[in-house]
């Protein structure tokens, strides 16, 4: 018998716990030439704002040890174009569509959240509170507890779909931030976003990017992401989506074992367009090998007694 891979994030039922991470899978279309999007638990769309956004000047990416920096700067086509040009295509697939969104200030957050909440075909919203590349007075929303509280409360008030809040790792106590998100009524949290980071070209003595800093993603940050996910899972009752450096099924399972209900795969799509599908297959195979019938039986099954036995 095939094990059940179904998980629930708020009222959202996913056929399996594997999503694509925002910004790494474009508007879905780009990867439909490689994989059958119907196989995915869900697609988290590139960060969307009310108006189209130009993003940062090039160069925008740079490779780092087992990771990459990006300074895309949230370039996107804006709400209207998304709904008109991208959503109809996405709706042809039997998978959940989660729209990652942001604004330049809280009013814009509320406005786009409100619109997305009323948009047919959008299954859930992911609120990006990090925006490491953006400079506004609301820039600290992701790191200052009281700003976060206010932002989530007001966004929640206008959203009657599943609302996921995506956390930045750039805080001392991420579990505390997650609790605020939970208190203010979000349905789920996702984590982690990228780390602010920098690479200097020693010849030109300037940043290798068009901006000074970028966001670090990829396998390099995975151990930090697993730890953060574990801490958040212990602190909140709402579902958690684990993100950060997932390349194969065993990486994904680490996040599930520490308590994540689902995972999102980012940078790995770039190095292997089949990554998500291979991860889903790998998880299924693992469950079969371990004799587990339901994915939910492995979620949060971490053995917290110190592992003092070697081999």
């Amino acid at each position, binding site marked *: 018998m095939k094990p059940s891979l179904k998980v629930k994030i708020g009222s959202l039922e996913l056929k399996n716990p594997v999503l694509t991470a925002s910004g790494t899978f*474009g508007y879905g279309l780009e990867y439909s*030439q*490689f994989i059958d999007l119907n196989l995915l638990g869900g697609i988290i769309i590139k960060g969307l704002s009310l108006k189209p956004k130009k993003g940062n*000047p090039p160069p*925008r990416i740079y490779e780092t040890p*087992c990771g990459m920096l990006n300074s*895309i700067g949230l370039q996107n086509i804006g709400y209207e174009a998304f709904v008109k040009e991208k959503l109809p295509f996405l709706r042809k697939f039997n998978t959940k569509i989660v729209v990652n969104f942001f604004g330049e200030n809280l009013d814009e957050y509320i406005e786009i959240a409100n619109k997305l909440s009323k948009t047919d075909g959008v299954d859930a919203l992911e609120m990006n509170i990090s925006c490491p590349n953006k400079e506004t007075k609301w820039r600290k929303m992701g790191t200052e507890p009281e700003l976060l509280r206010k932002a989530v409360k007001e966004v929640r008030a206008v959203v009657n779909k599943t609302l996921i809040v995506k956390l930045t790792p750039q805080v001392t106590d991420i579990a505390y931030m997650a609790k605020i998100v939970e208190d203010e009524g979000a349905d789920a949290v996702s984590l982690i976003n990228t780390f602010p980071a920098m690479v200097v070209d020693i010849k030109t003595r300037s940043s290798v990017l068009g901006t000074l800093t970028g966001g670090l993603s990829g396998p390099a940050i995975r151990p930090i992401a697993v730890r953060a996910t574990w801490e958040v899972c212990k602190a909140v009752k709402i579902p958690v989506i684990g993100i950060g450096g997932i390349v194969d099924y065993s990486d994904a399972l680490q996040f599930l074992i520490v308590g994540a209900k689902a995972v999102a795969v980012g940078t790995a799509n*770039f*190095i292997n367009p089949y990554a998500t599908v291979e991860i889903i297959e790998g998880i299924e195979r693992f469950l079969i090998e371990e004799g587990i019938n339901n994915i939910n039986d492995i979620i949060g099954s971490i053995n917290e007694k110190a592992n003092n036995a070697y081999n």
Partner: protein
Amino acid sequence: MNKFTLSTIVENKALSSDVYLITVKLPFRIDAKPGQFCILRVNGRLDPLLGRPFSIFDLEGETVKFLYRIKGKGTKILSEMKENEKISFIGPLGKWYPYPEGNFLVVAGGIGIASVYYLIKKFPERAIVFYGVRLKNEIFFFEEIKKFAKEIYVSTEEGEFGYKGVITELFQNKAKNLDLPIYACGPMLMIKELKKIVNDRKCYVAVEERMACGVGACLGCVINTVNGLKRVCTDGAVFELRELIL
């Protein structure tokens, strides 16, 4: 249609101290056009993490050739790979050079020849090729190009072979007034010089930018154009020169 697959190295041959020709075999035929590129990635390890883009140098059924220069870590590792080793392959990616109707001009600087060789070969006896290098021993596939091209002009910096100077000078001397479309690939300096010469003539250039996804999803490879930011991987790598802000 782009494919992602494991390819097998058939040959990986040093043509000079830092330029190699790699031949890979795919499990199936692909159909690609001159100016398109592929992304090659060494498997099994996470450093280097990303694949590296290379122009399709030549293509026959399931066999694809790339001509590459060692620039950094990724190309160094690539150069050390051996026959029968596997390498992951995404391609063919990007736009191609719009097909010329009659004769056409080609301007290639250094390793830029990799991007236009297949074009020259595909339309035999129609290309008037300008090929500039620093030193004589950096001229690759001279005999082949001579065979496929209608005419070929070479420049070397010190005049060891052909014209002494940079290729754009030679191009200006010989071809300034020929009313033919131009296809160009080479270092930024050459493209900038070319821009001064060709003004508003039809000139297609293949440009380079760091890439992550190669399929238009990450928005990492954008460049500035007169029509706003464009993705090199899907809006290019071939652009009209007049569109580019250099």
